[in-house]
């Protein structure tokens, strides 16, 4: 019954590794997002997709690559992980017109880089 689910919930890895975070929503939404929340709880949008099409691509390193195989899934792949990538990453979804629509969030993936 989970509306927006992310896996894994925790991810601990070494600097330089490549990792992926998966996100799925069963709400029938057209739009999905990735956010990064830093240690001070500041929430910043990274990417947004409308029905598999990239709409927002904020200034994030190109080591971060989103992939949307269908409108219910938006995965985040990160290459060459760095210490500064440690954060909580949230996936969210909404109906189209996302800036004006309430967003539904997953429970987050806590990424820790050793």
């Amino acid at each position, binding site marked *: 019954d989970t509306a*927006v689910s992310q896996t894994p919930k925790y991810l601990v890895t070494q600097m330089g590794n490549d990792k992926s975070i998966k996100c799925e929503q069963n709400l029938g939404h057209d*739009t999905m*997002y990735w956010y990064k929340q830093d240690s*001070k*709880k*500041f*929430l*910043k*949008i990274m990417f*947004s997709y*409308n029905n598999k099409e990239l*709409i*927002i691509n904020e200034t994030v390193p190109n080591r971060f690559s989103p992939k949307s195989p269908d409108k219910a899934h938006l995965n985040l792949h990160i290459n060459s992980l760095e210490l500064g990538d440690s954060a909580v990453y*949230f996936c*969210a979804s909404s109906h189209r*017109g*996302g*800036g*004006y*629509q*309430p*967003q*539904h*969030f*997953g*429970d*987050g993936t806590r990424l820790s880089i050793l």
Partner: protein
Amino acid sequence: AQSVTQPDIHITVSEGASLELRCNYSYGATPYLFWYVQSPGQGLQLLLKYFSGDTLVQGIKGFEAEFKRSQSSFNLRKPSVHWSDAAEYFCAVGVENNDMRFGAGTRLTVKP
């Protein structure tokens, strides 16, 4: 540029006391405004939203917020706080092109 300011980083209230969390926004057009709550280890949950119409909006868990265009504010209120309300609260403004800008959050601590 669109932005949201939450002036209070941390607020402590006693259980049963009233609560007001402040939010100011900067946006040229009519804003779409939201309040979200984040409990520890959880994602954000929508409390309420304002699009148009009545400037006093009711949300879940007994929360309400009032839109004041003249003050560019959208403050969140609750008449009587419960210990379970302890969480991080985020104000957000929805803008065009799928974008939503969040404030820095206000952490609420509830004293017994």
